[in-house]
């Protein structure tokens, strides 16, 4: 619990945020993407973090800011080429999270065959709820819900993931070392959509955790 508090207060905040893409079949379909044969991922810097109660900035370079509800996995021990059967022993816990995305910029990056960074890595674009110790959840049976202004937009159970948490962690740690405090966001279900300035976005694991954020203008 102390570790979690420190992680959340950014003292042991880790060095990076790994974000898995296309890990729910219906989400791949809704964006016209194929289901991948192996996990793929991109990386957000820690300047993306915003904690419960904070503000998500609608940066002026986008006209289509989207929410993406994700289960976050908090790394507790350094991991490099740890085999799948041992990865979960390196997990400190979880958090509910929103992989905020500039959808129009992402489309442009894709059509121009460029990296996605400008659409994913902006300040405040990794909204996270409080730390939940690993013992409190089973990674493959977690209900998650995202609401905008009280209306449900995304809702799923992590059992719908194409690649489960141990598979993802093993895959990433083959070539990229994960350090204590690093976060792995594990993909979003269908139902992604726009947020607007003034919206209140709430993320929850019902009965376990909740966090809310306000969308604000880029001044």
């Amino acid at each position, binding site marked *: 619990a102390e570790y979690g508090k420190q992680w959340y207060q950014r003292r042991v905040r880790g*060095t*990076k945020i790994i974000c898995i*893409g296309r890990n729910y079949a219906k989400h791949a379909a809704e964006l016209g993407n194929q289901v991948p044969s192996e996990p*793929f*991922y*991109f*990386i*957000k*810097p*820690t*300047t993306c973090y915003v904690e419960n109660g904070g503000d998500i900035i609608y*940066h002026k*370079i986008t006209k289509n800011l989207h929410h993406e509800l994700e289960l976050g996995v908090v790394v507790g021990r350094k991991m*490099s080429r740890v085999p799948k059967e041992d990865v979960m022993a390196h997990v400190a816990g979880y958090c509910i999270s929103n992989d905020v995305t500039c959808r129009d910029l992402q489309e442009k*990056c*894709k*059509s121009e*065959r*460029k*990296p*996605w*960074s*400008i659409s994913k*890595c*902006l*300040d405040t674009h990794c909204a996270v709820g409080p730390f939940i110790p690993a013992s409190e959840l089973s990674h493959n049976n977690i209900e998650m819900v995202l609401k905008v202004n009280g209306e449900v937009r995304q809702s799923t159970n992590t059992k719908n993931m194409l690649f489960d948490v141990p598979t993802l962690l093993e895959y990433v740690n083959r*070539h*990229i*070392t994960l*350090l204590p405090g690093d976060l792995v966001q594990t993909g979003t279900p269908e139902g992604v959509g726009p947020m607007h300035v003034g919206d209140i976005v709430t993320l929850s694991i019902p009965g376990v955790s909740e966090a809310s954020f306000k969308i604000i203008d*880029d001044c």
Partner: protein
Amino acid sequence: QSTGSSGINAEYGDFVRAGSKIVCVGRNYAKHAKELGNALPTKPLLFTKPTTCYVTNGGKVKYPTITNDLHYEVELGVVIGKRASQVPIEEIMNHVAGYAISVDITCRDIQEDCKKERSPWTMAKCLDTFCPVGEFIPSERIDPLNTEVLLKVNNELKQHGNTKDMIFSVPTLIEYINRHITLLPGDLVLTGTPEGVGPLQRGDEIYAAIPGVTEATFTVE
């Protein structure tokens, strides 16, 4: 962490341990864009590397099993000394603590696949040991608008460029990034590579330098 009267954080000298990220700029020298068949950009092209990419002078770059075409790209690295967020261009260089000679290691074949599939460049750019860097050089020793960078492989010259050939200058790049991504003390900005990129083999020795200022050596394993 101590800060001087300018607000520059004294940890920047150990930027490899103090910084939070590496922000990289692509296609910033016209002849390099051309050699890879890319159009010249109208705005800086950005991607990031995590700090697990760092290798310091004398260290080893790992040739991953998943690629057959590992490439070197020598770059001037800019070390941030003072937090920068929406700082205007006329003040931005006050936030720079110094520089480091750097190599942006790239899996060229994987990068081509990422471009074909329109996916992120992570597996081409972000693997462990993919950012070898030399020592920290204080800002007064470098003119970012006129600095030579060179790279040799097994003592054979491969790249030799000058930052005056950059499409977007160092101040332009840092101002552009800091509009929407806060830069923190110890963060590194890689500012693009000149022409002459090419493949590495296991066992190669990489020598990267700013002649007369700094040099660093790495081996590929």
